[in-house]
């Protein structure tokens, strides 16, 4: 190990983390060339492949590496939170009809019907423009872009690094949710923990919000697959050997490294455009059910990404390559990259819970800049394998259990429901509380689901 590992957890979560290979994976990441500070794991960490999910690692720009596996297959998988001017009591009686409308607007599962079809020319525009492209096409408004990480468009995107195969996989998936743990959820604010930040984010108790969790779909998966292969072939030429093949990496400044970063930025832009299109379709669904209600983007944040960011390293400001694999950027008040209307309180940190439990809005802190390269957790984190989750439960039982708690659900597949049942995840409140108590993000509001659409 070139640096120490640091895991954020309490005793219970740590014992869960110890049960799988998370700690070994944190240690493996600590062996990568050019790693700075510590190899980090957030309290929602669990075993991934190569990097642990919930892992954060920063690399020196001159001596360090970039790892496609350090970002993961779902490049810019992330979360969008929309806030409405509706109250829970207005939406709850119509939740079934609203979910029905939402599921028509937002295709989910392995199906593709209803996506935005992309010609080759349009695809390049999406890869370069991200959410900005979507807004230019009428899927949203400028105000949305002002409230997305990086304005919804990462600079340095290079469509030439996105293979024909990746384009083919992404050609008819824009505006679709996907499956696995992806979802769109109608929620309401059940508790406000930080009145000042909540006020800045225009959040108040009883208010209805919508959370979308999705990423770059097959296009991003293929970009990672392609460049993982390139990195495997190239790394020995740079004298790099890794403990786990999934950690394949190349120097940041190498031709292969720059090629990957250009493609990764392009795939990230596809993901921003994807969430933007779905967000706008949420507006159609709400307009259809609730007439003149307003739906605003509160924030949109990536949790699988590698980015060049300026951080203080041993007393000096310098650029580093921060890999976040299942971790959320959490910049503090005053940071130039926080939207101007939130800058007095900090960047919203969006933490989706498991299906049918709570989600949270947090806010970034100065301590995160000091300890975690401005990063916090990204969710609850799985505690049960998909296989185990399916074993003793039927989809009908999951639906009944959720409905008994007032939560309505629609799913593309039965397995989507059983694999993602609430018991398959750690307690998100415990995860968030650890982050809060460690001071790397501060709790702002708790969001409770009314209805969920599952991939």
């Amino acid at each position: 190990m070139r640096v120490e590992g640091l895991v954020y957890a309490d005793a219970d979560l740590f014992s869960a983390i110890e049960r799988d290979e998370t700690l070994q994976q944190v240690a493996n990441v600590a062996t990568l060339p050019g790693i700075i500070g510590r190899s980090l794991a957030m309290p929602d960490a669990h075993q991934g492949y190569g990097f642990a999910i919930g892992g954060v690692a920063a690399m020196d720009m001159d001596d360090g590496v970039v790892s496609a596996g350090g970002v993961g297959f779902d490049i810019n998988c992330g979360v969008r939170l929309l806030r409405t001017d509706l109250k829970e009591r207005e939406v709850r009686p119509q939740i079934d009809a609203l979910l029905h409308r939402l599921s028509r607007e937002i295709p989910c599962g392995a199906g593709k019907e209803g996506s935005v079809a992309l010609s080759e020319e349009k695809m390049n525009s999406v890869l370069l423009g991200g959410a900005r492209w979507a807004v230019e096409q009428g899927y949203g408004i400028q105000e949305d872009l002002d409230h997305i990480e990086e304005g919804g468009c990462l600079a340095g995107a290079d469509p030439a690094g996105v293979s024909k195969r990746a384009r083919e996989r992404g050609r008819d998936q824009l505006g679709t949710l996907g499956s696995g743990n992806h979802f769109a959820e109608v929620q309401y604010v059940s508790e406000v923990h930080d009145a000042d930040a909540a006020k800045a984010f225009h959040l108040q108790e009883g208010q209805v919000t919508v959370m979308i969790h999705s990423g770059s779909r097959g296009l991003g998966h293929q970009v990672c697959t392609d460049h993982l292969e390139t990195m495997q072939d190239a790394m020995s030429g740079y004298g790099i050997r890794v403990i786990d093949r999934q950690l394949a990496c190349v120097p940041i400044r190498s031709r292969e490294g720059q090629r990957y970063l250009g493609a990764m930025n392009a795939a990230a832009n596809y993901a921003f455009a994807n969430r933007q299109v779905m967000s706008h379709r949420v507006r159609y669904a709400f307009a259809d059910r609730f007439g003149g209600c307003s739906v605003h983007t509160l924030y949109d944040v990536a949790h699988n990404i590698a980015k060049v960011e300026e951080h203080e390293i041993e007393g000096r400001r310098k650029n580093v390559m921060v890999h976040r694999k299942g971790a959320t950027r959490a910049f503090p008040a005053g940071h130039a990259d926080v939207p101007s209307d939130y800058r007095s309180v900090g960047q919203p940190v969006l933490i989706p819970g498991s299906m049918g439990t709570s989600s949270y809005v947090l806010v970034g802190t100065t301590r995160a800049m000091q300890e975690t390269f401005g990063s916090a957790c990204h969710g609850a984190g799985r505690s049960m394998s998909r296989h185990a989750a399916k074993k003793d439960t039927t989809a009908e039982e999951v639906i009944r259990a959720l409905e008994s708690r007032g939560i309505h659900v629609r799913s593309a597949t039965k397995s989507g429901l059983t694999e993602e049942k609430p018991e398959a995840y750690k307690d998100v409140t415990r995860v968030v509380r650890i982050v809060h108590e460690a001071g790397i993000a501060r709790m702002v509001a708790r969001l409770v689901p009314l209805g969920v659409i599952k991939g």
Partner: protein
Amino acid sequence: MPFRVIEHPADLGIEVSAADRASLFAEAAYGLTHLINPSSVLSATLERSVTVEGADLAQLMVRWLNEVLFLFDSERFLVSSACVRFDRSFRLSATLTGEQADPRRHVNLQEIKAVTYHHITVTESAAGWSATVIFDV
């Protein structure tokens, strides 16, 4: 069954066994197809050919299954039968037959994001060939 689904804390995997190397790769393709399409019987109405090469058997397995995954994600092609031939030690050609997924008949299709190198093994023993592959879902 020559393949079985195995547990991973967040994802899914398959453990495959076969008498010979070519059959092992064919069974792995059936295993991946089973994860995508767990409940429907498939017919053989379409045919596709692929050639794949790797630096070793593990890389060949990942690249081979990536082909199967790509055929599904780009064409909705589900494999019912794979005829695999090894041209060289780490290079194979295959004829795949199957059908295009039909949303009316093929329900509960599961999206698989990618084939990973995590804990991948492809080994030969006295009992035959075996492999383990984990997928990102």
